[in-house]
């Protein structure tokens, strides 16, 4: 009983001391933007977008080597980003073997920048509070 009362007292004290968190701008400004959160948040997709932000283009094989993922896994993630028009994929054949080259689009670059801004805002807000 005494322990419970002590816990209640500590909880109430913590509530009184709880600092207010600073406001963080929403990553998604509109409902249309909302899906970008879920798209970029995933680790492999975030990695793909980041890598393509500093390279003009990357092939499927290069991306696979970078993130150490299976063919199927990488294809699925890349397709999702492609469907959102964040990436373009050019498929061709070289020595009768398929070759896929990925490039980031302006829309994708903007989405990545928005995401980066949001993450930085979270860091600043938590450090302020």
């Amino acid at each position: 009983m005494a322990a419970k009362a002590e816990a209640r007292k500590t909880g109430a004290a913590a509530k009184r001391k709880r600092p207010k968190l600073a406001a963080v701008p929403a990553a998604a400004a509109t409902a249309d933007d909302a899906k970008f959160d879920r798209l970029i948040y995933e680790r492999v997709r975030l990695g793909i977008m980041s890598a393509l932000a500093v390279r003009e283009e990357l092939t499927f094989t290069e991306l696979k080597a970078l993130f150490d993922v299976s063919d199927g896994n990488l294809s699925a993630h890349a397709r999702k980003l492609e469907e959102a028009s964040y990436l373009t994929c050019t498929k061709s054949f070289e020595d009768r073997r398929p070759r896929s080259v990925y490039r980031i689009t302006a829309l994708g670059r903007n989405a990545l920048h928005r995401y980066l801004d949001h993450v930085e805002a979270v860091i600043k807000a938590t450090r302020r509070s």
Partner: protein
Amino acid sequence: MQSANTVQLDSHAAATLRYIRASMESAVSLAVPGSTGVASGIVGLLAAVVSSVPALRPHWLIIWLLAAAAAAGVGGALLLRQPSLSSLTIGGAPIRRFFIGLLPSLFAGAVMTWVLWTNAGERMIPGTWLLLYGCGLVAASAATTRAIGILGASFVAAGLLALVLPQAWQIAMLGVGFGGLHIVFGYLMGRAGHGRES
């Protein structure tokens, strides 16, 4: 309790930023084109051929120093030719780390060349070059791909071999190292980076 949550959120966001940065750096480090190795290798092979001509043999050191400058120029130009690389990584972490790894060994090579040349140690110069260049590549491989590290280790092995071989083999060892190894690894790296899907 709340402050602990706040720290978690903060560190999660910071980890996300670190992951983004690491992804960017890894992507850039893959950008070392195989053509750089092939071009440097061709210069190395030419130097080996020219310095093997009996009439030019006494001038082998000058020939190889000129070849080193030419290979560095051609290789550097090919390395920086890619617009995405040049716009984002000159002075950036991967390129800087690569040169920080490589330059001390090249400096040591220059000093040792002078010391050996002025102390009648000419026979040891090729082995020293191969060994130190290999050490530099191994150190620089931290900023690039594992292939560069393996290339560096191969140079180290070639250097050790050259140090125990007689004078007559020294030019050939330079050709094998700076010519052959560069071309073979450049070709393999070019193939790997060409993006052929299985």
